[in-house]
C-alpha cells in the first residue's frame, strides 16, 4: 500500500534565503506552511501568518489564581483553621503572608509558561512526527533552514511544489511520508495527558502515603523513639522487680491532705465540730446530706431509704436515741471510715463538708424528735 505524502521540505542555506522564499511560496499553495529552523527567526510569525502565542494570557491568569489562592489559603490556615498568635502578630497578618504569596505566584506563572508551552501548546513530547526520522532533521538542528508544505490530510501535487520551492531558492528537496498508523495504542494526545496526570497522581499519592507512614519508623529515624529513659506503664530493668512505675515512698502524704489517724470509733469522741451553726453551714450540710446520705438513711435521716431495690443491709436510723447520744466526733468518724456496709465517704466530702453534715444530722434529730414547745407560739395551732 502506498503511504500518503505528509509534507514536502525545501532546504535553504540561510535565514535570509528562507525569509525571502516565504512570500514567493505562500501565495501559490493552499496547504499549510511551516518552517523548521535551528533557532527562532525574527519576523517568522508574521511571514507565515501564525497567530500570536497565548502564553502571556495563560501565565497572567494562572499567576492571578496562584496569588489569590495562596493568600486565601494562608489567611484561612493561620486566621481561621488553627489561629496561632506568633510574636504578637494578629491572626490575619496579611503583611507576613505576602512573601509566600509572591513565591507561589511566581511558581504558578513559570510552570504554566514552561510546561503549558511544552505540553499544551506545542503538544510535546511527541516522538512519531515524520520530521524526526527524516534526512533533513540533523541538517536543520545544525545549520539549515527548511520550509515545509504540509499535506494536513489533503493531497499534494508534489512535482508542482518541488518546482516552486526550487524556484524560490531551495537547495535540496525532501518528501516526507505519512507514518504507518499505530493501531491499538492510540496516540490520542488528550488521552495521554489525562492518563499521565492520573497515573502520576496515583503513584505520587501511594508513595507519599507509604513514605510518610514508614519513614519515621525506619532506622535510624526510629532511634529517637528508643531513648534511655523511663516511660510510663513500661517495664524497666533499672529496678530489681522490673516495674517502671513505682509506688510512692511509705509515709507519702497527698498535697493538701491532713491524715486521719483515729482508728477506733470511740476514740473519735474527742473531736469537736469546728464549724459554727450558721445558716450557710446548715444549708451546705443539707445539700451534702441530700446528695450523699439520704439515699440510704432517708431524706429525714430515719433509715427509710429511697432505694427501691432490695439491698440487704438495713441503714441506721440516724434520728433514733442511739445516735442522738453519739458525740459529733463519732458521727464524723463514721463518715470518714465507714461502718459495716457503709463505705468511707472521705473521698466525696471534704473536712468542712463532713462537719456541716454532722450539724445537719443534729438538725434532723431535733426536728424528728420535736416537742410542741419547740414550735414558736405564733405558728402553734
Amino acid at each position: 500500500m502506498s503511504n500518503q505524502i505528509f509534507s514536502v521540505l525545501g532546504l535553504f542555506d540561510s535565514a535570509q534565503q528562507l525569509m525571502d522564499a516565504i512570500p514567493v511560496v505562500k501565495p501559490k499553495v493552499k496547504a499549510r506552511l511551516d518552517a523548521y529552523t535551528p533557532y527562532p527567526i525574527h519576523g517568522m510569525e508574521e511571514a507565515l501568518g501564525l497567530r500570536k502565542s497565548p502564553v502571556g494570557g495563560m501565565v497572567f491568569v494562572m499567576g492571578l489564581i496562584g496569588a489569590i489562592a495562596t493568600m486565601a489559603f494562608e489567611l484561612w490556615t493561620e486566621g481561621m483553621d488553627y489561629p496561632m498568635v506568633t510574636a504578637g502578630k494578629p491572626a490575619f497578618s496579611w503583611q507576613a503572608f505576602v512573601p509566600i504569596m509572591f513565591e507561589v505566584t511566581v511558581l504558578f506563572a513559570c510552570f504554566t509558561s514552561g510546561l503549558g508551552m511544552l505540553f499544551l501548546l506545542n503538544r510535546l513530547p511527541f516522538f512519531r512526527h515524520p520530521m524526526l526520522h527524516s534526512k533533513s532533521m540533523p541538517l536543520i538542528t545544525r545549520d539549515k533552514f527548511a520550509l515545509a508544505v504540509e499535506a494536513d490530510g489533503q493531497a499534494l501535487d508534489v512535482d508542482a511544489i518541488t518546482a516552486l520551492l526550487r524556484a524560490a531558492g531551495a537547495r535540496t528537496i525532501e518528501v516526507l511520508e505519512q507514518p504507518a498508523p499505530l493501531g491499538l495504542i492510540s496516540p490520542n494526545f488528550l488521552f495521554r495527558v489525562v492518563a499521565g496526570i492520573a497515573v502520576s497522581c496515583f503513584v505520587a499519592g501511594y508513595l507519599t502515603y507509604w513514605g510518610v507512614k514508614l519513614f519515621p519508623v525506619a532506622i535510624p529515624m526510629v532511634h529517637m523513639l528508643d531513648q534511655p529513659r523511663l516511660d510510663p506503664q513500661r517495664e524497666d530493668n533499672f529496678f530489681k522487680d522490673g516495674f517502671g512505675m513505682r509506688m510512692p515512698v511509705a509515709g507519702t502524704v497527698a498535697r493538701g491532705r491532713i491524715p486521719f489517724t483515729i482508728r477506733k470509733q470511740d476514740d473519735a469522741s474527742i473531736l469537736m465540730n469546728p464549724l459554727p451553726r450558721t445558716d450557710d453551714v446548715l444549708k451546705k450540710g443539707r445539700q451534702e446530706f441530700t446528695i450523699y446520705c439520704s439515699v440510704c438513711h432517708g431524706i429525714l435521716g430515719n433509715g427509710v431509704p429511697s432505694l427501691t431495690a432490695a439491698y440487704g443491709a438495713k441503714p441506721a436510723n440516724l434520728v433514733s436515741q442511739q445516735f442522738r447520744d453519739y458525740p459529733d466526733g463519732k458521727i464524723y468518724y463514721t463518715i470518714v471510715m465507714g461502718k459495716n456496709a457503709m463505705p468511707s465517704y472521705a473521698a466525696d466530702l471534704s473536712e468542712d463538708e463532713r462537719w456541716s453534715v454532722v450539724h445537719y444530722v443534729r438538725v434532723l434529730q431535733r426536728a424528728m424528735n420535736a416537742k410542741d414547745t419547740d414550735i414558736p407560739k405564733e405558728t402553734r395551732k
Partner: protein
Amino acid sequence: MNSETFPLPQDMLPEALKTPPVTIGPVSPASLDEQVLAPVERKPPLAWFIAFACTSAVMLLGISLIGYTIATGIGVWGNNIPVAWAFDIINFVFWIGIGHAGTLISAILLLFRARWRNAVSRFAEAMTIFAVMVAGLFPLIHVGRPWLAFWLMPYPNQRGIWPNFRSPLIWDVFAVSTYFSVSLLFWYLGLVPDLASLRDRTKSKLRKFFYAMLSVGWRGSASHWRHFERAYLIIAGIATGLVLSVHSVVSFDFAVSLVPGWHMTIFPPYFVTGAIFAGFAMVVMAMVMVRTTMKLENLITMYHLEVMNKIILTCSCLMGYAYLMEGFTAWYSMNKFIHHTFWQYIAGDYRVECWLTIVCNIVIPQLFWVRRFRRNYFTMILVALAVTTGMWFERFVIIVSSLHQDYMPSAWFIYKPTLVDLGILAGSFGLFFTLVLIFARVLPVIATTEMKSVLPGAQPRHAGGSLE
C-alpha cells in the same frame, strides 16, 4: 531643529568606543556544533578525571561528615546558644548567593538583549542549579531531625496544624524551592533545542534514546518556536523578580528579628547585591577554567570576562555603599545595643574576619578600575577568590559576630567552629564542583542554539537589534 545623523565609520572611532565582537574569528553554526557539542560525545581528557577524583573525594568527606552529624546530633558542630546559627546558615546564604549570578545572566540580560550573554548563560544557569542544590542541603541537615523535614510542607495532617506561614524560615522553604524549580525549568527549556542537536548528531543508540527522551521530540518548527520564545521570555521576566525576592526572603531571616545588627532595613537589596557579587566572582573563575581547558577562547572572549569584571566592580561599589549605610545608620540610630554590636564588628573578637571582609569585598576589587587588570587572568582570579572569601566572611561576621554578644552579657560566648563544620564546608565545594564537572562532561557548556541566533548573518535584515 533638524536632526541630522552623523555616521562615523567604525575604524575612525576612538578605541574606547569600539564595540568588540562577541565572537573572535570565523564562527558558523557548524563550527559551533563542533566546538561545543563534540566534547560531549568524546571521552573527556585526563585532566577531567583527575579533577573529578579530587572533587569527589572532598565531596565524599563532606557527605560522610553530614552522615555523622545526622547520626550523632548537631552537638558535633560548634553551634551553641547564643550563636545558634553559624556555619550552617553562613553556608546556606553563601551558596544561594552564588546561584544568583546565573539567573541574572540568564534572565535579566536576556531582557536587556545583551549580546554577550549567550556564551556564558548555559554554564551560569547550571551553576545556579548546582549552587541551590548545595545550599538546600544546609537547612535540611541543620534541623535536629532531618527525616521530618516534610513537616515544613503544608499538608493536612492528624495533628491538625499548619506550618507557621508568618515565619521567614517557612518563607525560605517556599522561596528556595520555587527558585530551584523555576531555575531548573528555565535551564531545561533552554537545553531542549540543544538536546535535539545532540540527538541528531550522535551515533550511539543508547545516547540517542536518552537525548530523544529529554528533548521531547523537538523539531524546530516555527509554530513551536513562537510559543517557546514567548514562554522563555516570560519566565526570564518573572525570574528577574524571583532573584530579587529569593535573597530578600533569605535576608528577612535576619532582618525581621530584633538582634542588633540584623534588623537593618537595607538588608534585602544589600543581600541581593552581595549575592550577585559573589555569584559573578564564581562565574568568572569558572569561565576562565572552561575557556582555557575546553579551548573556547573564541566564544568566551576577553570581552565577556571584562564585562563580568565590570559588574563585579559595580557590585563592589554598591557593597561599599551598603556598608557605609549600615555603619552610618547604626551610629545615627542612637541605640546603644546597635552601637555595641557595630563596635564589636570592627574592634571585637571577630575583628579580623570583619576587616578581611572589608578588604576582600571593597578594596581588592577596586583593581578593576584599571582596564589592564580587567583583562588579566592573574588579577581576575585574585579578585574572584578575594570576593568569594570576602563574601563568605561577610556572612560569618553578620551571623556570628552579631549573635555572640547581643543583649544579655550573661549569654555572651566565643564561637569556634569544629572540624566537622570545616569539613562540611569543604564538602559543599566538593559537591558543587563535582556537579559542575559532570555537567561539563554530559551537556553542552554553551547554549549553542542561542549563540547561533546571534552570530552575524543569523537573522534576516531589519529584524533584530541589540542593546549595545
